[in-house]
């Protein structure tokens, strides 16, 4: 970590340094659309080997732009304006490589082999005129150079891995259900045995029952193959269950990072607190829901300082001058970071929510 540490020591909060060396380290990453819309604004995080990091945010918060930026899949008018993405897999040179500085040829070797990505819409991500066998085989041919027999075995193993019958190799994407297509995408992402898998809303388009099955399968595969996951979703309730650590994003900036337990029990940033009070749950006792007043931010005209100010219960004049730097939350573990220097978990509990809950109608 030393090379990066000296270069970016200022933006690197020492408290976040994990015991294990991170397999993916994102420092000060910024992505800009049309030169003035900051979709991702100075984002720092790291992903430990075998870890699941959840990235939660609303639509327009920049979470998908961040994922595409990591893999350098962004198209104009999006431009990466600053930062580094250091990948330190076991198969690359010690010290890691900066994905943002590779040539496109070097990058092509890394994609799928080291870092793969699963998109939300499997129907659009799969080629409709190719059989599943050919699409999976493409990944193998490009990266693994297997002999014919080995290739055949590998294809079968991959389908077994995600629980799809082997005869489905002959199918076209339209012959599969939504859940099966998403499983094929996962199989494809795992085909070349990568160390990092980015999942961009992998289950959002699916029914809850199927979503559950696929999540269970992802967790099981991760336990077996030990890859790290960056799990991107708008559904914080899902992340609390699946992720080891959670990063919450708002208007292109990270606002809070912590373990699932810290985020659930002691949310420090007002936005996280609002999100946690926003979704109803079928499990447990009925709770008072609060919601977040106002509308999601417009990235083209953000207020100075904290972008959450217009919707925040705790906002004061001081909030307009802060630099959104992530700092350890007082009274919590040093790995728990928040961008709000004023609000604590205890303050939020004392404050009454502004939006009345839609619970008056309950048969209690």
């Amino acid at each position, binding site marked *: 970590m030393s090379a990066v540490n000296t270069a970016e020591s200022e933006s690197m909060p020492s408290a976040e340094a994990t015991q294990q060396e991170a397999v993916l380290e994102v420092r000060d990453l910024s992505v800009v659309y049309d030169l003035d819309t900051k979709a991702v604004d100075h984002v720092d995080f790291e992903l430990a080997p075998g870890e699941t990091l959840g990235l939660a945010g609303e639509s327009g918060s920049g979470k998908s732009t961040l994922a595409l930026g990591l893999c350098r899949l962004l198209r104009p008018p999006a431009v990466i304006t600053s930062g580094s993405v250091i990948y330190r897999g076991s198969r690359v040179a010690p010290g890691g490589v900066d994905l943002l500085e590779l040539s496109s040829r070097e990058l092509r070797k890394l994609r799928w082999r080291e870092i793969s990505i699963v998109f939300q819409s499997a129907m659009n991500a799969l080629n409709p005129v190719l059989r599943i066998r050919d699409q999976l085989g493409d990944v193998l041919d490009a990266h693994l150079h297997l002999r014919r027999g080995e290739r055949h075995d590998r294809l079968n193993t991959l389908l077994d891995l995600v629980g799809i019958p082997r005869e489905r190799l002959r199918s076209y994407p339209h012959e599969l259900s939504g859940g099966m297509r998403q499983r094929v995408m996962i199989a494809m992402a795992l085909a070349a045995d990568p160390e990092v898998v980015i999942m961009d809303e992998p289950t959002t388009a699916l029914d809850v029952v199927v979503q559950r099955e696929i999540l*269970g399968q992802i967790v099981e595969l991760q336990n077996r193959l030990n890859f790290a996951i960056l799990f991107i979703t708008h559904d914080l309730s899902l992340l609390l269950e699946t992720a080891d650590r959670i990063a919450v994003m708002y208007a292109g900036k990270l606002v809070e990072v912590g373990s699932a337990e810290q985020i659930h029990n002691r949310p420090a940033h007002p936005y996280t607190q609002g999100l946690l009070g*926003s979704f109803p*749950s079928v*499990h447990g006792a009925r709770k008072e829901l609060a919601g977040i007043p106002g509308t999601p931010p417009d990235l083209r005209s953000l207020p100075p300082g904290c972008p959450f100010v217009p919707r925040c219960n705790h906002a004061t004049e001081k909030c307009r001058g802060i630099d959104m730097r992530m700092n350890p939350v007082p009274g919590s573990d040093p790995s728990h970071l928040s961008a709000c220097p004023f609000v604590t978990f205890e303050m939020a509990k004392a404050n009454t929510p502004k*939006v009345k809950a*839609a619970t*008056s*109608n309950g*048969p209690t």
Partner: protein
Amino acid sequence: MSEQLASAGVISAAAARGPLVLEARSLGKDFKLSHGWHRDILSAVRGVSLGLYQSAVVALVGESGSGKSTVSRMLAGQERPTTGEIALDGETVQPWTHGQFRPYKSNVQMIFQDPFASLNSVHKVRYALARPVRLHQHLKGHNAIEAELERLVERVRLTPAQQFLAKYPHELSGGQRQRVAIARALAAQPRVLLADEPVSMLDVSIRLEVLDLLDELRSQFQLAVLYVTHDIASARYFADDTLVMYAGEIVERGPSEDVTQQPAHPYTQLLVASAPDPDNFAGEIRPASSGEVRRAGSALSTTVGCRFAPRCPLAEDRCRAQAPPLLQVSAQRAAACWRLDVAAPDLLHRTQEEREEAIKT
């Protein structure tokens, strides 16, 4: 109270809030499918009976393809039922016929899932709202209409009103657009509001506000609301009564809190178990798995037996041979399952005790 429901002996929890307004009497909808020479009939909806009561919310919950949207479209008069009938204030209506459509629409209005598609993008908000005001309220004169438009827009908490009336849909956020759609539905001064997934396209942080607004309007205008959703958790908080649909049929019905906290039907149990549990942080993902989903196949008219049987862990020969009717579980609850004694033993046991108690007193 509908005949079908009364015969099942189930009292709707929503009935406690007000008189029956709109009623579906064993509605069914078949769609013809063709695969080359082969023809099939898909019964997208079969024998669905439900009542919408004044000032009450009834939720219709199910996965995609379960027929819940088809039910709401039939109730809105946009789809003609193959079997069954619709009754408004106890009188049978045929909203798809030419003369009855507009008077029916004055009573029954709908909100759609996608506020980006449901508003005409070349017209301003003022146009979208002025049409129903003229057609259904028969207001004349610029000033009267303008005053009504302002009142409507303020009613859905879009202020300042004049500013929003002059905007095009693309200038509004998703939440604001859905508010305009709600205002448009209210412009007809309806008594029934059919909301088909009204918040599922919105961001998590603003869903609650829109649901809250709907709830406020419900109590203020004494609206009978049908809330169609795939999210059983929101039904728990928002609706008096929850009906669960699977492959075109209602498999369970009852007060929302009871249905979500003590589901009786194996499918409802699967649905509840599959919902994310935020309190189970960084824990084990409980396997809630059961077979591959065969959606279209299981709703074909040729299917015999319980449609959930292929996925049901409790299925036995009887389930595969004969479709179970909605059986009463308690005073307000019913479930369509032959194996309730295994699926929900506590529930049946308690009902038995309640009955004996009732006989004694």
